[in-house]
């Protein structure tokens, strides 16, 4: 409502200007520049003028083809098999390198493949490393978001008891949040180190020596999982606190009513606590998702994307191109793809958790 007392165009603009101007310059402008650069061949420093290249950067990253390899046959039409009994196929290179009959396969490389009858179906990608980064990032988010949110809720319920000294425990559970993820990553390298590492020792102690030590960060099957576990450890206290503030907005009279009715603990949680946490749940899922997509420092410190690209992620790829190779356009293209995914997922979460009336 406008009143003469508060109407003031000049003062209003002047006071909002520093904040609004800085956000426009350092957040909104680079945001739109990312879109603009992704359509060019912009480099950090280059003697050649920048050119518009359309969607070439996107094609170079996202290009996929499915191709079916048919077995090599002899003149009689029989399938050739090698000494080990494996079916022999023509080499992929014959199709992907300068083969005018297959222009769509030009420059692509094998991402993965599977057997179908005597044929072999191959999925080729223009940029296999990017595809792995995309899949790893999405895996990371899909695991971290529910696990971290769930564990944070368990911790919040644990800390919401009325016990002497409970605020000390709350302070301790929150502690990793104030420690830099860079510091945490270095410390956890000792936990995950092969052979005599802390985790290997604990596990072999618990199983009375039956556990075989692993190289947690050095094996493709465990590296991403190890980084997920550490990330949850570091971040879970943050969301515990947000759950806790949600828990404390639930009116105590509801709990008293449930007690009078003789509800079980599970019933209290299901019918009193959980409905009161709806909005908190949406917020937490969105915040964790956004934070999880930004995964970078853990990878940079612990694995550099390895082993065999099993921990490649989008921000690491964007930095490797934009900063490492000074390819601003390539890095920007990955940034745009990342942003579009984050946006879609937050909208989807909002839609899935909407009020159903």
């Amino acid at each position: 409502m406008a009143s003469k007392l508060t109407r003031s165009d000049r003062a209003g603009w002047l006071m909002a200007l520093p904040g609004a101007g800085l956000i426009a310059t350092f957040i909104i402008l680079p945001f739109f520049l990312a879109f603009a650069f992704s359509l060019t061949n912009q480099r950090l420093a280059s003697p050649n003028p920048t050119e518009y290249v359309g969607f070439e950067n996107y094609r170079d990253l996202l290009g996929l083809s499915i191709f079916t390899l048919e077995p090599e046959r002899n003149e009689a039409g029989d399938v050739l098999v090698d000494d080990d009994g494996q079916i022999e196929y023509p080499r992929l290179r014959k199709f992907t390198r300068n083969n005018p009959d297959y222009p769509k396969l030009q420059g692509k490389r094998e991402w993965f493949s599977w057997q179908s009858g005597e044929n072999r179906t191959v999925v080729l990608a223009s940029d296999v490393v990017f595809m792995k980064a995309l899949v790893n990032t999405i895996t990371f988010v899909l695991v971290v978001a529910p696990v971290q949110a769930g564990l944070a809720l368990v911790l919040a319920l644990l800390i919401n008891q009325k016990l002497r000294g409970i605020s000390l425990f709350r302070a301790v559970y929150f502690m990793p949040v104030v420690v830099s993820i860079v510091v945490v990553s270095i410390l956890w390298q000792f936990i995950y180190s092969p052979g005599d590492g802390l985790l290997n020792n604990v596990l072999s102690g618990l199983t009375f020596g039956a556990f075989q030590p692993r190289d947690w960060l050095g094996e493709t099957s465990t590296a991403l999982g190890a980084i997920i576990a550490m990330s949850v450890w570091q971040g879970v206290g943050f969301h515990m606190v947000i759950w806790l503030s949600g828990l404390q907005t639930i009116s105590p009279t509801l709990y008293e009513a449930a007690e009078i009715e003789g509800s079980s603990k599970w019933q209290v949680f299901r019918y009193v606590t959980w409905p009161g946490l709806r909005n908190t749940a949406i917020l937490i899922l969105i915040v964790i998702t956004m934070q999880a997509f930004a995964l970078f420092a853990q990878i940079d410190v612990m694995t550099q994307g390895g082993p065999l690209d099993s921990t490649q992620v989008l921000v690491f790829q964007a930095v490797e191109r934009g900063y490492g190779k000074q390819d601003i356009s390539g890095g920007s293209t990955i940034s745009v793809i990342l942003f579009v995914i984050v946006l879609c997922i937050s909208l989807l979460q909002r839609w899935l958790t909407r009020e159903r009336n």
Partner: protein
Amino acid sequence: MALVSPDNRGLRLVTRYAVLILVAVIFVFPLLFMGVSSLKPDQQLLSDTNSLRAFLPVGDISFDNYSDAFQRAPIGVFVLNSVLVTGVTVLLTLFVCSLAAFSFVFLDWKGRDVIFTILLATLIIPYETIFIPLLLMASQLPWIGGGGIEFGWLNTYRVQIIPFIADGLSIFLFVQYFKDLPRELIEASRVEGASWWMIYRKVVLPLSGPVIATAAILKFLFMYNQYLWPLMVVQAEEIRPVMVGLGYFTDQLNVPWGEVMAYLTIITVPVLAFYLSLQRVFIASVASTGVKG
């Protein structure tokens, strides 16, 4: 209704504390390992990980790692840079964002609602998606220095500070807080002829202690722990912050782990001490980001 026997209650209490303590151990042990290891020579540090000795200050204990670490890298400079960059950014954030929020909440002006909506929308842009174009901008932005206009912000303090002064979350926190202040107070001051600047300074700011603490703590944690941005824009040793300074220790052929632990302890313990002394305020700050979001 069954009566709960005293024994049973005692047992339940013990179980509850046992669970709480077990979880606490999970959160504390890596930090304990860090502090304890910083006192051990490399050889012992590595061999101790096969037993509980990893968490005990036993064996050949000394502060040698600390003095060696100070010899290897200009740690004082790194710490000073981090304190300077973090401190200046926090102060500027408090001023710029509270002023903007004041204008959004208490003043009526043309375009206010549109601009506020746009600023709120920026909350969905993760910094990591704008760092690459921002890197190019930073390499070409102008600055008025001693010798007239110069171009390029790389390897400066300003490139570590200015882009992070204003952000949607800080403004949003102030707006939420200001909305709950009594409007009559502001209107009464207006009637008495106070300028907007006076009202901001003398009426609103003195009432804003809690939100100032919240915004300051969140910005402090973000700035002190920044890694990716300074990694890209700061190469010069004399302006490096602590997280990037870590490279002096970890980029070695034979990583001096004792010194690494000493360095990590130096850059982490002050923050932990600060947190523990103000833990209620820290936790309330994080909680307030969730209440009305």
